[in-house]
């Protein structure tokens, strides 16, 4: 027996030791660079470490969305949304061209202002980021598993989509309010009879179902200018608030003529009631032509459909659906606190902030505490809805976000500062200058029910002397503040892409786990996919030549093609066969009047080449893919039009 008892521990010990060999190493802590207490340490993310937050910063007139990390400010990716992008072939390859289609044709640019993350129960869920296109009114969906634009919906009866795309609590809708009043439907008429004849549309776009992001309904409003919006949350869920300016309905020299009224309005839309009226058949289907573009991740291809009509609700037919709340001096931002109780209007030509109470608003509606009406829409008495005024001491409040601990932070454009104040006591508790002229500001989750109140990002309009000059056009910039303590602390200046209007942020844990590494080749349903090298081929169909090409480290199949003729239209349908993380390949053809393709593992993309001259022309891989990347290249022989060169293709003979 003794023998046995000795034997067992030895065996088990050995096995344990061997299993123990497989353990991983411990993670090292980030070293401080200046001793631990400077702002540099707070914003420092050591090499190899990752940021704590994602920031989604609008690219403004670049039409893009920039993805940064916080607190480092490092730029990770620029997502083209309303702009063509030669780097990613967005808008250049055949698959994504339909994304930029509109009722006015292909438009390769727009002005992207406000990113908005999708929410579930009023909290950021990290599924999608939406962003508006201001010029040719559009909204877009960026899928945050792939960080690519996957859906764009144009807006009919709208002009200048500024108050957009703010979401409702469960991403039931994103909204879009027109910045310009225009004839609805559009028609030829004199401009100087705008007053009373132009209209403003507020669109509610279905957003929680990819592939079906279309206008659910529009509320046809008086012809004011609609500036920004935010939806209610918690108790105020079911309402969306829009700021208006130019309630004067001026049509010229607006800087003066639309700044005359002491008070403009916050429009409160009861969209749950709107849904009820729609169900009762109160909606009217009117002409309204708009494009709906959807990128299918399985076919790797976008399609564009044109929709001809839109359902419109007229407030006159829908009592109780719309109310106006007075707000001083052309309000810009309209922000709802995390509890859904307070609605903060930022009168941009004023020194003060106006805070209305949702509870008081409901009570005022019940008590019919009206102060007349505008085009039949009841105007609630200012005192009946007002909860308080923040006397800021600054000038030009634009936008407010919240920390979820009873504090609000408002940007002041004219006095170039962030002001921190307390909800309910309305007292100002701190202020910091911005360099220079802050527009919007952003706290990750700061317009949701659950802010992550550690950092605040100021999105500035002017840079001047903050960076090395780059000629007359200077870099765009944001600033990072620590808001974890009583006092705000400036940590970092960092450059951004285009003009950063608004931004959104979320903790990395909400987004990172959903990030895809590859596309499944097996599930690739592209009509011209080629899944194995032995299926690689060239087919002629009249003057169209279709190349079914594959790419894998480190060759194309086929890499020699003959029988192409001058005057042909050659389609390169290229599939990346790789199924490993971070193994894209690129491809470009000498003389092709388009961009390169940058193709992710498992993806198929197409470009067209129309050879103009006989010869032997090269193509090559543009993304450094491997030690033999430089060898990843091929030839196409181009013969004279009408020649008899046989169509053939090969790899390695």
């Amino acid at each position, binding site marked *: 027996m003794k023998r*046995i008892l000795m034997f067992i521990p030895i065996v088990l010990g050995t*096995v344990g030791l*061997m299993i123990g*060999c*497989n353990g991983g190493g411990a993670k090292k802590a980030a070293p401080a660079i200046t001793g631990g207490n400077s702002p540099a340490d707070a914003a420092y993310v050591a090499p190899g470490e990752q940021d704590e937050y994602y920031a989604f910063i609008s690219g403004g007139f670049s039409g893009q969305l920039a993805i940064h990390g916080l607190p480092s400010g490092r730029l990770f990716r620029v997502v083209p949304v309303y702009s063509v992008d030669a780097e990613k072939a967005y808008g250049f390859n055949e698959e994504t061209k339909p994304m930029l289609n509109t009722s006015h044709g292909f438009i390769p640019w727009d002005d992207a202002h406000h990113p908005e993350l999708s929410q579930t129960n009023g909290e950021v869920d990290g599924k999608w980021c939406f962003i508006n296109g201001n010029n040719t009114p559009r909204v877009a969906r960026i899928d945050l598993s792939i960080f690519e634009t996957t859906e764009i919906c144009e807006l009919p009866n709208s002009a200048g989509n500024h108050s957009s795309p703010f979401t409702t609590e469960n991403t039931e809708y994103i909204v879009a309010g027109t910045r310009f009043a225009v004839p609805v439907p559009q028609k030829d008429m004199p401009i100087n009879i705008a007053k009373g004849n132009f209209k403003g549309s507020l669109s509610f776009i279905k957003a929680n179902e990819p592939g079906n992001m279309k206008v659910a309904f529009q509320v046809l409003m008086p012809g004011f200018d609609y500036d920004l919006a935010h939806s209610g949350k918690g108790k105020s869920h079911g309402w969306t608030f829009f700021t208006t300016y130019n309630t004067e309905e001026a049509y010229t020299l607006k800087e003066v003529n639309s700044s005359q009224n002491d008070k403009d309005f916050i429009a409160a839309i009861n969209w749950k009631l709107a849904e009820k009226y729609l169900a009762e058949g109160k909606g009217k289907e009117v002409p309204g032509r708009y494009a709906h573009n959807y990128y299918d991740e399985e076919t790797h291809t976008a399609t564009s459909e044109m929709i001809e009509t839109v359902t419109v609700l007229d407030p006159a037919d829908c009592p109780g659906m719309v109310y106006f709340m007075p707000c001083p001096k052309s309000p810009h931002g309209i922000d709802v606190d995390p509890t859904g109780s307070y609605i903060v209007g930022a009168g941009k030509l004023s020194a003060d902030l106006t805070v209305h109470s949702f509870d008081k608003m409901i009570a005022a509606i019940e008590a019919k505490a009206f102060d007349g009406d505008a085009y039949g829409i009841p105007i609630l008495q200012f005192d009946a809805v007002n909860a308080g005024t923040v006397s800021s001491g600054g000038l030009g409040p634009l936008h407010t976000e919240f920390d979820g601990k009873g504090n609000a932070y408002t940007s002041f454009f004219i006095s170039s500062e962030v002001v921190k104040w307390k909800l309910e006591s309305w007292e100002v508790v701190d202020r910091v200058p911005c360099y220079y002229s802050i527009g919007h500001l952003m706290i990750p989750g700061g317009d949701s029910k659950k802010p992550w109140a550690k950092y605040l990002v100021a999105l500035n309009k002017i840079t001047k002397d903050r960076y090395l000059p780059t000629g007359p056009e200077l870099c765009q910039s944001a600033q990072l503040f620590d808001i974890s303590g009583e006092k705000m602390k400036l940590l970092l200046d960092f450059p951004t892409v285009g003009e950063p209007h608004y931004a959104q942020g979320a903790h990395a844990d909400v987004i990172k786990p959903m990030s895809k590494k590859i596309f499944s080749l097996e599930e690739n349903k592209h009509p011209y996919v080629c899944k194995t090298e032995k299926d690689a081929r060239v087919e002629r169909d009249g003057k169209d030549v279709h190349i079914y090409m594959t790419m894998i480290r480190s060759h194309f199949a086929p890499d020699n093609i003959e029988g192409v003729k001058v005057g042909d239209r050659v389609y390169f349908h290229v599939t990346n066969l790789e199924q490993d993380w971070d193994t894209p390949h690129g491809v470009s053809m000498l003389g092709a009047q388009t961009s390169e393709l940058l193709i992710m593992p498992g993806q198929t993309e197409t470009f067209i080449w129309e050879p103009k001259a006989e010869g032997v022309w090269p193509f090559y891989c543009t993304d450094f893919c*491997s030690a033999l990347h430089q060898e990843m290249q091929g030839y196409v022989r181009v013969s004279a039009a009408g020649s008899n060169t046989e169509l053939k293709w090969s790899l390695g003979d």
Partner: protein
Amino acid sequence: MLKQIPRLCMLLTIPLTLQLFFFPLWQITLEAPQYPEGITMYIWINKITGSSEFTLQNINILNHYIGMKYIEPDSIPELTYFPYVIGFLVFLEIIAVIIRNKWFYLGIGALVFAMACLGLYDFYLWEYDYGHNLDPNAPIKVPGMVYQPPLIGSKMLLNFNAISLPATGGYLFLLGNVFGFLSFVTYPLKKRK
């Protein structure tokens, strides 16, 4: 109760052998700076899998630069007949539990041990074949370099650290063999005349 120990040990060898259908026998991990997560290939009695669905394809892509043959499970006959060998071992172990014979017990222990040694030798031969039998036209040729992974332990192969170790199934199988021998060792001495 003590009398039952040998038989219990033999009984334990059955699940410890059968588990090979559910756990991999061996694992080879490749580590390189560009592969922070490592690439691990698992060798089962009937298949080869990886830490991801596409591990084998990705290893083959890397291996082609040095001219190593593609690792194709279909071309490895062992993966077809190993399950039968294991099935046969389980059959013998069941017989052993039924007939309760000390020498049969020893025979099982020895046979399983021999099988394990043979299996290791076979594994070594495959490693040798993959490591030495290289395409003379390979893009990367380092004079004198062979790419045979270690039988057990780790070894630098160019930029990759190759680590070869038993996997869960392998350890459990080894434990089964220990119990096989224990069933012999614990067999009551007094029965011997």
